[in-house]
C-alpha cells in the first residue's frame, strides 16, 4: 500500500476525492501547504522543490503507517509536489479519515509535522531581487 506520492504535476483536491471514503468513516481532515509570497521578510516569486525520491517515498509511507496505527485511521494519504511551483500552488496535501474527528485532526497534524522534518525534500526560494537560496531547515 503506497499512499505517499511524489509528483511534478499540479495537485488538485478533486483528483484525491476518492481518498477516505468508506461507510464507517465519520471524519476526514485535509491539509494543504501552499506556496506563499513571502518568507522571513523576503518577497518570494517562485519555489523549487527537489527530492531524494526513493528514500522520500519510503519514509513518507512509514509516517503514514505510524499515523494509521497510532490514531486507528481508516485511511491516510500524502502527496508532495516537486519541481518549480508558482505562488498560490499547492506543494503538499495530507488527507486522513477516521471514525471520529479527534483522530482525523491529530493524525493529519502528525503526518505533516513529520513529513516536514523527516522526508528528504528541499525547497529553494527565488526572491524578487533576483537572489535565490536553499532554506536551512530546522536541523
Amino acid at each position: 500500500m503506497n499512499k505517499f506520492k511524489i509528483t511534478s504535476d499540479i495537485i488538485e483536491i478533486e483528483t484525491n476525492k476518492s481518498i477516505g471514503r468508506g461507510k464507517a468513516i465519520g471524519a476526514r481532515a485535509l491539509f494543504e501547504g501552499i506556496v506563499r509570497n513571502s518568507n522571513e521578510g523576503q518577497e518570494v516569486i517562485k519555489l523549487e522543490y527537489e527530492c531524494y525520491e526513493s528514500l522520500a517515498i519510503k519514509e513518507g509511507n512509514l509516517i503514514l503507517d505510524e499515523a494509521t496505527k497510532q490514531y486507528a485511521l481508516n485511511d491516510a494519504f500524502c502527496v508532495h509536489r516537486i519541481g518549480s511551483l508558482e505562488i498560490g500552488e499547492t506543494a503538499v496535501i495530507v488527507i486522513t479519515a477516521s471514525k471520529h474527528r479527534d483522530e482525523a485532526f491529530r493524525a493529519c497534524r502528525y503526518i505533516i509535522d513529520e513529513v516536514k522534518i523527516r522526508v528528504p525534500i528541499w525547497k529553494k526560494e527565488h526572491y524578487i531581487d533576483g537572489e535565490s537560496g536553499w532554506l536551512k531547515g530546522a536541523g
Partner: protein
Amino acid sequence: MADLLKIQVIYFAKIRELTGLTQETFIIKKGFTPSNVLGLIEEKHCIVLGVNFKIAINDEFSDWDFELRNGDNLVFIPPVTGG
C-alpha cells in the same frame, strides 16, 4: 585492490549546487566511513560542507561511522525543508 572499494555518492540540493554534480564515484579504502568520504568531497571540490547532514546508504538512513562496503550508494541529506 583487495582493500579498495568503489562507492557512489549522490548529491541533492545545496551539495549538488556546490559540487556541480548529481553524483560522483569514489574509490576509498576499506574501513572508510561517510565521515571520511565527506572529507574527500570537501577536499576534492574545495568546499566546506559542515556536518549538518543525515546519512543514507542504499536508501536507508544510516550513521556517520558506518563502515562502507563495495558498491554502496551514499547520500548526505541536508536538513529537509519540504511541505
